[in-house]
């Protein structure tokens, strides 16, 4: 029978390698599929710069004008909290930084555990709120497919299991840690084949939109 220690080394070993391979290969494939489609040249006389427009929109799309903000305040605020929280928990918690050092050989500053703990709770709550909003808001419910809920689940689980592992709740630490790592691996496997790809492709999307507008002398 597999002990929790066996389980932990299994998810840290072969499963991790597999998941990483799928993650890296999948993302490369998806990005290649997009880039290889190319686009036609624009023969219309430019009024402005594609480059400037593209660069601008990469950033400007993270800001909203007043009326847009008012109309979608809920999605925007909860979305911001969730993404910032996810970033902090992923890249600024000490155990993760140690892992990165092990993998890539360099590290950076981490935040105190108590802070990470608080951010995790806030992030989990923001995600719950986003899920409820998704189920309640007519448009979001209408647009959502099975995929949206898969994406939500595989993002939620690593946060939840990480929190539980830290607090040694439900299962003993090694098992909980193993489950946490497994949940991240599930996230990595699902990532390239779902909307989670927006993490990378949104920069392409913003670039194209901004460049087209820039060519016309419009800031979007």
């Amino acid at each position: 029978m597999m002990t929790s220690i066996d389980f932990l080394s299994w998810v840290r070993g072969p499963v991790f390698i597999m998941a990483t391979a799928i993650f890296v290969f999948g993302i490369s494939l998806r990005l290649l599929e997009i880039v290889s489609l190319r686009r036609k040249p624009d023969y219309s006389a430019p009024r402005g710069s594609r480059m400037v427009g593209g660069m601008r929109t990469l950033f400007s799309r993270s800001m909203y004008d007043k009326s847009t903000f008012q109309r979608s305040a809920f999605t925007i605020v909860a979305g911001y909290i969730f993404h910032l929280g996810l970033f902090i928990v992923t890249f600024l918690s000490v155990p993760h930084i140690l892992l990165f050092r092990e993998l890539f050989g360099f590290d950076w500053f981490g935040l105190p555990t108590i802070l990470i703990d608080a951010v995790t709770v806030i992030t989990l709550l923001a995600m719950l709120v986003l899920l409820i909003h998704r189920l309640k808001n007519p448009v979001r419910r209408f647009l959502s497919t099975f995929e949206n809920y898969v994406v939500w689940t595989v993002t939620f689980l690593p946060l939840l299991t990480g929190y539980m592992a830290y607090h040694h709740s439900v299962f003993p630490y090694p098992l909980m840690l193993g489950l946490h790592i497994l949940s991240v691996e599930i996230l990595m496997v699902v990532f390239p084949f779902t909307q989670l790809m927006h993490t990378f492709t949104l920069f392409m999307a913003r670039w194209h939109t901004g460049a087209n507008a820039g060519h016309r002398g419009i800031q979007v």
Partner: protein
Amino acid sequence: MSAATFERGYKAFKEQIDAPIAAYFSSCVSCGMCAEACLFFTETGDPKYTPIYKLEPLRKVWEQEYTLWGRLKALLGISKKLTDDELAEWQELIYGSCTMCGRCTMVCPVGNDLVYMIRKAREGMAAAGHAPPDIIVGTQRAITIGSATGVGLPTLQAQIRRIERETGMKIPMDVQGVEYMALLSSMEIMSFPEYLEALAKIMKYAGKTWTLSSEGFEATNAGVQIGVSEIAKELVMRIVKAAEKLQVKTVISPECGHAYGAIRWEGPNLIGRPFTFRVQHILEVLDEWREQGKLKTEGFEKARLTFHDPCQSVRRGGVIEQPRNLLKMVASHFVEMEDHGKMNWCCTGGGGVGAIEEAHELRTKAFNRKKTQLDALKVDKLVTSCANCRLVLEDGLEAYEMEMPVMGLTEMIAEHLKEEGEMEKDKGLYRFSEN
């Protein structure tokens, strides 16, 4: 148009997909924000009008043709193939409830240019024979008669004769080697010939040489509207040939925003080469002359008024500040709507919607957005710079029993030009030609 079939449509969808489209579909997180930007959703509350949902047919083709994962899903039966019935169902979403205003493009947090996608989706729809009948008829008229509304050269000639008789001005036709060739929209010719009269007056005032062309005067492009590039190209070529034949330096797009987008931004791409002449929107031309001091006005409109931004010349066209500069010259009580300029709300009749009989009820409902905007301002007059917007606005105002005159900006400028006598007193600063 060769016979429309589902296969041709599918092929057209496939051909339209490029890197931006793939990046856009890959990025959507179903956040729903684009719905809040679209007046067909905000005024009805019906989620089917969500911009990204209107693109579902195009998304299917992209996923199943250009992603390995999508092919696999289709093979395993997890995702369904696109069907002809589905396209028929989507007609009201891709045409009847999308004015191609591009407001959704402004708000999508991942940066999707949704209207770029709609424009491409229409190519597939038209090739599959699922464009609305009204739009198909209009497109056929554009090829045979010269414009979607059925206005042709004889109508224009009649209007020219009338203006010449009434004003004593000469409207130049087919004159070679002049600086400007002006284009018109059939709606201006039919419903607002004041525009042509104003144009002639301003040209004379500024001392510029110009002409119309009997072979290429119609600037609206039914091919762009319906989404058949082949036809759009043919219509653009009429203008290109005329401009090259007359050897003009600049072609002036009429106020009509759609016409401007079609000739200024799509035109060269439709014919696959840059133009040999410059294209400017009439308001760009006027604002340039204002800056150069060639356009002097006197007197002010006293009414409290606001400006309705035509989507295609402002948000999608980039002629944003010019109308404001010009309006401030002649209006003393000019106020802006809360969402204006790039964030303006559409008149509800662009992108061909105004021509679709079946869409009329929905369009009128959506007009509530404009009504709300206007009510908040308490204005007495509405100024715009697009004949189509103007007709649609008048229609909407009437439906909501709102008494409010709608004026064209170019005409307003023409009405306020400083008198000829005054001009001469202006220390001979301006050359004044008599033609």
